[in-house]
């Protein structure tokens, strides 16, 4: 069971929900939490455990081997991303623009552009009781999050069985990194806040997830502030509203120190229980 936790707007509480829900579920179930917000991963600040595994993550880029190169310029011609250019007698590669399509390398008549690994990030895997936590972090200056997100998901597929509950803390927005992080999910939980910004970005996220034919549900964070437009929208669009996490300065304070809010606030625990019931139902339905 793969559950992506996403939002259009940043800072609505994706990480708060992911970490608290993962910890709560893991009190009785085996759970994997994976932070796919590789540009700014934060879940690891809230989940402490023992380091099980750590590895560098690579993407493949061409490396110019000048010995046999005839400077035919074909590589530059076939690259749609301007990641490789010919400057006089030199071929220059711009790794941060390269999408690793291999076209320049495999179409080079003299095989002068072998593909070599380049570090794009780091993956860590922690374990705490029932909870496995995996996070990847993009190297600063590396512009493309998608390959790292894809490889991190592959690590999860290779290391965990299908029937385990897997939560994916996704990047904000509606563009390529979010698509990559949610396209294999069975359910996408969208976290929003009851404000005009929250509603506007929720609508974008809903449109995106519907385009992907995803089953969606909503969690409202900071409930009580703003207005009821988000709730009305969910009702009119028939999107299940799983939980309302109350607006409170206390929550902001607990979160700010890196602690889990449900352990201190029973009203939050009740909301997590609502989400758990939804997830358990989904699993049962999936098994049928």
């Amino acid at each position: 069971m793969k559950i992506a936790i996403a939002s259009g707007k940043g800072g609505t509480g994706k990480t708060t929900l992911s970490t608290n829900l993962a910890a709560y579920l893991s009190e009785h179930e085996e759970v994997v939490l994976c932070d796919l917000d590789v540009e700014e991963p934060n879940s690891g600040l809230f989940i402490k455990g023992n380091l099980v595994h750590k590895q560098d993550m690579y993407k493949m880029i061409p490396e110019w081997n000048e010995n046999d190169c005839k400077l035919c310029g074909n590589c530059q011609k076939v690259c749609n991303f301007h990641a490789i250019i010919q400057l006089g007698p030199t071929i220059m590669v711009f790794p941060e623009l390269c999408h690793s399509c291999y076209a320049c390398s495999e179409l080079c008549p003299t095989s002068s552009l072998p593909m070599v690994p380049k570090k794009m990030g780091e993956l860590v895997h922690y374990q705490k009781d029932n909870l496995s936590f995996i996070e990847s972090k993009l190297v600063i200056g590396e512009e493309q999050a998608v390959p790292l997100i894809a490889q991190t998901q592959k690590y999860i597929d290779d290391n965990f069985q299908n029937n385990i509950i897997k939560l994916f803390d996704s990047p904000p927005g509606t563009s390529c990194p979010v698509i990559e992080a949610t396209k294999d999910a069975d359910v996408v939980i969208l976290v929003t806040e009851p404000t005009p910004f929250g509603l506007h970005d929720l609508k974008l996220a809903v449109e995106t997830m519907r385009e992907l034919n995803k089953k969606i549900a909503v969690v409202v964070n900071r409930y009580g502030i703003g207005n009821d437009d988000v709730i009305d929208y969910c009702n009119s669009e028939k999107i299940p509203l799983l939980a309302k996490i109350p607006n409170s300065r206390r929550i902001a304070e607990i979160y700010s120190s890196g602690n889990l809010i449900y352990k201190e606030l029973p009203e939050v625990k009740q909301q997590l229980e609502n989400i758990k019931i939804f997830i358990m139902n989904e699993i049962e339905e999936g098994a049928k």
Partner: protein
Amino acid sequence: MKEIVVISGKGGTGKTSLTASFAVLGGEDVIVADCDVDAADMHLLLEPDFEESEDFYSGELAYISQNECIQCGKCFDVCRFNGIDVVNGKYTVNELNCEGCGYCARVCPTEAITNKPLKVGKWYTSNIKTGSIMVHAKLGIGADNSGKLVAKVKNEAKEIAEDEFKDYVIVDGSPGVGCPVVSSLSGAKFVVLVTEPSVSGFHDLKRVYELVKKFNIKTGCIINKFDINKTITQKIELFLAKENIVHISSLPYNEDFTKAMTAGLTIVEYSNNQLKELVINSWNTILESVP
């Protein structure tokens, strides 16, 4: 003309609320660029009229013409992105996975594959309530290349500012440290980092500043909600001093920000209290700090 870019690393720190306030305070002198094209929200506060719009094309998508296709499978073999689906022996492009690299078209023996330009969104030039102009955009659903749309929005805003002899362009950037953020930073004169004193806010601040450093741009920082965690606020202050970042201001936790937004207003229009003063002082400090 000077360009001020507001970013935050972490989402939800108050970046857009503050940028919109600065746009109101700057009035006619400031051209606004909403470069958070993934989740553009500034229009909710600045009342744009969407006067002009233009489609934005970037990148390509492969298309296989079934008449010419001889099902040789070469396209499938070379694609690294699972961009070619084979259904009942028929080869089609998986539009979600296709990266637009064009490799398949180059190896197709019958030229059955063409690359079509991809419409990734729309951008707008609008008159806004500040008496100035805003350039903003809407990214298509799930579209790639948001970095290029960011560059487009920014360059349009800069051109308008130059044509109309405006003093400043203020840019609302996107969260993260990836390609849209890199795009919004290039060419900036001053960067404003908006952070909050939480473990994640501070963590993301340090990461995004690592990126800013590569561009060698003078930087300032606003600590929003400074009073929710004074220990981390102190750590942030030490970090700012060590890195030579201008500490623009510290703003208290105040739900008026959300109330103002709910009313479709910026904080400087909504409130008349100390908070408004603090935001005005922040803007003045920014103007004094821009090199």
